[in-house]
């Protein structure tokens, strides 16, 4: 059995605000959510450029009793999933709960709650832990809560491949539907790791910017961490058409690869292999691709290697397609990044506008493609790519096609 897979709903919590419309408005306005932010824990403090979720109050979305067990990373997944399910419309086409699965990504589960527990345990020397610590911090908590929220009893799992997690999750969701294990999957990712311990750890690896995130630009000096959740509803084309659901795009193909080279230094070959794999499984001609939503972290090495990989895969066409990284506007949300950016890509296709790469100062010698600098650009986007890369050299790419060819 091979089914075709389409996206019928999107939902988002990001530093640009709660809801997919807030994300889109933020991208179109081009005003970055990044600001110098103070982080203090356990008697220590430091300042970093960061992009915390904006306009979010947990009691707007949850009952007080629900908060003890739900770390913010799970909350963001649930809130984004609710929006995506509403957006996808009436779900009476799915009477059997076993036909709906949940496949989400995150990098590190309840990092914030673990930080609090570590301060208590090792800092305050209090040996007893809160009994809810494990179920609250487990990486798969987001998947469990979303499955409960929608009584989805189909295949459900958590993908933990760091910054590529949400894109890998969507790839798995696509495969599940394509091969008949589910008819509908709630997919994407969430993350809430904006904590002093995490920032210090990334800063030690010299990947954090101390100014702002300016992907593909000259004078770029690193990434800026954010948080949030990005969720999409994937379902089989036949059911979506039968129930008259508005379709954002078809998932034409997916590709995945490992660099098998270095934990921290990306290779060109890995992203090339993932991208080519997606084009091949999707039977997409590279010249059809109009827009790539890049991983584009703003580090020297990522943006250089990603640019090279795009040139290798697309050849001359790399000069015609456009590439942008929306991370300059909403920051790098790690395991949520691929979800938030997939939502951005789907909205770009629907609205016919490529979101900009903000904070762009000018071309870099090795980053010389059209990155849609600083201002959104109206254009027809028939075929788009969302790609994500993670530490460990793990890569994922998803290809979206706007026009459904029957």
């Amino acid at each position, binding site marked *: 059995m091979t089914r075709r897979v389409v996206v019928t709903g999107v939902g988002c919590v990001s530093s640009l605000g709660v809801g997919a419309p807030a994300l889109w408005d933020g991208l179109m306005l081009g005003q970055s959510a990044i600001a110098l932010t103070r982080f203090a824990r356990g008697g220590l403090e430091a300042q970093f450029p960061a992009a915390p979720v904006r306009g979010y109050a947990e009691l707007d979305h949850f009952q007080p*009793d629900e908060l*003890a067990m739900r770390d913010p990373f799970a909350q963001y997944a649930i809130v984004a999933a609710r929006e995506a399910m509403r957006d996808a419309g009436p779900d009476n086409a799915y009477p059997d709960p076993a036909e709906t699965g949940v496949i989400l990504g995150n990098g590190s589960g309840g990092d914030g709650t673990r930080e609090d527990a570590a301060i208590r345990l090792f800092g305050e020397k209090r040996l007893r832990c*809160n009994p809810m610590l494990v179920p609250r911090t487990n990486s798969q908590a987001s998947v469990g809560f979303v499955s409960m929220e929608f009584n989805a009893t189909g295949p459900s799992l958590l993908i933990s491949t760091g910054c590529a997690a949400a894109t890998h999750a969507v790839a798995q969701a696509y495969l599940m539907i394509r091969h008949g294990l589910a008819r509908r999957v709630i997919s994407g990712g969430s993350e809430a790791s904006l904590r002093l311990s995490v920032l210090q750890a990334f800063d030690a690896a010299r990947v954090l910017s101390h100014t702002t995130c300016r992907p593909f630009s000259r004078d770029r000096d690193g990434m800026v961490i954010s948080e949030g959740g990005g969720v999409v509803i994937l379902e089989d084309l036949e059911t979506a058409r039968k129930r008259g659901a508005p379709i954002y795009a078809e998932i034409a193909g997916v590709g995945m690869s490992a660099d098998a080279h270095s934990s921290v230094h990306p290779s060109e070959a890995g992203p090339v292999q993932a991208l080519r794999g997606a084009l091949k499984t999707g039977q997409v001609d590279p010249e059809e691709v109009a827009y790539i939503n890049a991983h584009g972290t703003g580090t020297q090495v990522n943006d250089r290697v990603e640019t090279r990989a795009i040139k290798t895969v697309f050849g001359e066409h790399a000069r015609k397609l456009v590439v942008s990284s929306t991370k300059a506007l909403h920051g790098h949300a790690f395991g949520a990044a691929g979800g938030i950016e997939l939502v951005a890509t789907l909205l770009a296709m629907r609205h016919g506008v490529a979101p900009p790469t903000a904070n762009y100062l000018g071309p870099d010698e090795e980053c010389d493609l059209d990155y849609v600098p600083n201002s959104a650009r109206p254009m027809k986007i028939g075929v788009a790519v969302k790609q994500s890369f993670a530490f460990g050299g793990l890569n994922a790419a998803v290809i979206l096609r706007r026009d459904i060819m029957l």
Partner: protein
Amino acid sequence: MNILDSSEIDERIFKAIRKVKPSLESVPLTPSTRIRDLGLESIEVLTVVFEMEEEFNVSIVDQQLDTFRTVEEARAVVEKLLAKQGSPGTGAAAAS
């Protein structure tokens, strides 16, 4: 040593319960309230015991004393532990 009186201990046990389940704020709790009858999941019951340990700065689970069913029985355990350690029962949580 000035040990807490019964009603104060009860109030602080109620506080521990309501910390775990804020919606019980509007539910009247009494010494005879059975903790398992409050609609708590098993992990929430464990967390009530944890919050009591925090509240009174005592160790209940390690001494296998978490067998109480009612608030009254919980109070007896707390009183016994406070008397044993000769502490007025101002735990970290109570002090904050």
